[in-house]
């Protein structure tokens, strides 16, 4: 019982940003068919923007969370207009698009070091107060992260599934021509998708950053896990991503506790996810490609 409780609490709070990051990645992947490797830099830069607002202007973490997310959202839209929209107009293939996004990811990851400096940076925040949850001490930022992630995840879910704009997003994803004939404005909706994805990624990055440190590899370290969660969990809907993300977090925490080594937990998870993909096949690859 104790072990299960520990794994649940640690897994849900420590890996909550994973759910948020995976949802943002899912939006772009499911709705535009693109594996955007540079999404990991949206996450990284969300952390950097938050850290910059926090250390340069002295705002506290709660204040910088929203502007950091918005800036990451604008960055995400910017990458769409500068790189991915021209690429789509030139009819670049799926494989080449992944390599392009990898190139953009490498470019951003190193360019940001000229803007923010080489050394690892930290948020300037008071040490979080520890709150006792089911006998496990959890830092207040992590608990807050869990709360905000759940709220954001549910509102994003509601937005996609229940609102008119969400309906347009889904319409565009399943049949671009039909959606356009029905009065959906593709550019507006696509920009909205990239913006929402960027906001989700940026906020996830800020949570990752405040929990440990802000470094150029912050997003890239999470990228494989995000990719696996989305490919395995996102076959049906965004709800699957949320559930898979939460289960992944708990599984990581539980295995880390059992094995005493975080890396082994990651290793087992990577192997398990790839095995699932191999057995199931990547079914939803050609269901929706905008």
């Amino acid at each position: 019982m104790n072990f299960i409780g520990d794994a649940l609490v640690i897994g849900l709070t420590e890996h909550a940003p994973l759910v948020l990051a995976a949802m943002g990645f899912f939006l772009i992947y499911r709705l535009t068919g693109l594996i955007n490797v540079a999404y990991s830099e949206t996450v990284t830069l969300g952390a950097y923007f938050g850290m910059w607002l926090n250390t340069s202007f002295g705002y506290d973490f709660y204040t910088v969370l929203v502007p950091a997310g918005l800036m990451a959202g604008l960055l995400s839209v910017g990458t769409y207009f500068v790189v991915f929209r021209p690429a789509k107009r030139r009819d670049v293939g799926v494989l080449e698009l992944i390599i392009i996004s990898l190139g953009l990811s490498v470019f951003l990851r190193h360019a940001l070091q000229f803007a923010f400096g080489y050394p690892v940076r930290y948020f300037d925040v008071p040490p979080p107060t520890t709150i006792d949850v089911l006998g496990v001490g959890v830092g207040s930022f992590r608990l807050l992260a869990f709360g905000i992630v759940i709220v954001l995840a549910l509102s994003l879910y509601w937005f996609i599934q229940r609102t008119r704009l969400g309906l347009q997003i889904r319409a565009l994803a399943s049949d671009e021509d039909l959606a356009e004939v029905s009065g959906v404005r593709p550019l507006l909706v696509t920009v909205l998708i990239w913006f929402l994805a960027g906001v989700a990624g940026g906020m996830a990055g800020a949570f990752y950053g405040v929990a440990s440190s802000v470094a150029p590899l912050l997003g890239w370290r999470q990228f494989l896990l995000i990719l696996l969660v989305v490919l395995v969990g996102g076959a049906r809907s965004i709800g699957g991503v949320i559930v898979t993300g939460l289960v992944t977090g708990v599984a990581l925490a539980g295995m880390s506790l059992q094995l005493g080594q975080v890396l082994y937990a990651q290793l087992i998870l990577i192997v398990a996810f790839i095995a699932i993909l191999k057995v199931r096949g990547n079914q939803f690859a050609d269901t929706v490609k905008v």
Partner: protein
Amino acid sequence: MNLNWLDAFLISGLFFVMMIIGLALLLHLQLGLAKIANFGVVGFWGIGMYAFGVLYVKFDWPFADPWAFLVSVLFGTVVAGLAGLLVGWIIADLDTDGVLVGTLGFATVVAILATTEQDLTGGALGMGGLRFPYDVGSVKGNEALWLLVLTAVVALILYYVHRVHRVPYGRLLIGLGDNEPLARSLGKATFRTKLWLFVLSSAGMGLLGSLFAVKERFLAPEHIGIDITIAAMVGLVLGGTTRVWGAVVGVFLAVGLFDIVVQSYLPLPREWYTQGIPVFREMVFGAVLVAVLLFRPSGVLGDMRRDKLMRRLHGE
């Protein structure tokens, strides 16, 4: 032999360029011909490097060095080939997204194992004890000779790739990349072809990894980062993914510019070399990948040249 004219930086730079050319040539078979994007090149290279190093250093060899050394190199090559068999089997029937996950995941697994298995690999601290299998008297002489060995291996790979373009097997790979269902309906064993392609090219990458370990004389997890994959991919894409000489030209243009020209010949302030230039180099590599694929997808050398028969058929 007098080697004063040869700068130690130049040897290192040339060695690195040669090795990346080798990797890019093997990647050309996968990415350029069969259109399988291997994002885990460094994983195959790294597993060969570690398999060689661990066997060579940790095993109690009953016979003398050249043989112990050769068996270890063979072991590294075979292990990388087997890894290629496994990864090839996993990704052979997945789409591009699945290939990305499989190859990237494999590279991550290798990096994790290199860190966790401390008894074997020395963990994050790394492992020393590697040396050249000969001694010609000076460090520089040893390194220069090793550069020649690597150049010979890369030349062999180049010759092999050159041959592949001119035999039925190469046309099968191209057909596989262009239209796999068609190749399959014509009676070609596409699954087995992909497996063999991965076994052979991964074994080659493992061999290059073993050779690199000897030059470096030290194994550490920070050697097997994504930058190796990026360097090979940038060189190949810049030169032209579908051309035999694309990898050679592209790697000289991209990696050669930074690792030979900037390292050895440009009079830049010393402190730039520690952080500024490596970061700038990766930044430029990323930008080159994006720009080339957007504006000139066929690279510097341009589109694929077919052999005489194919050119006549296509009416050129």
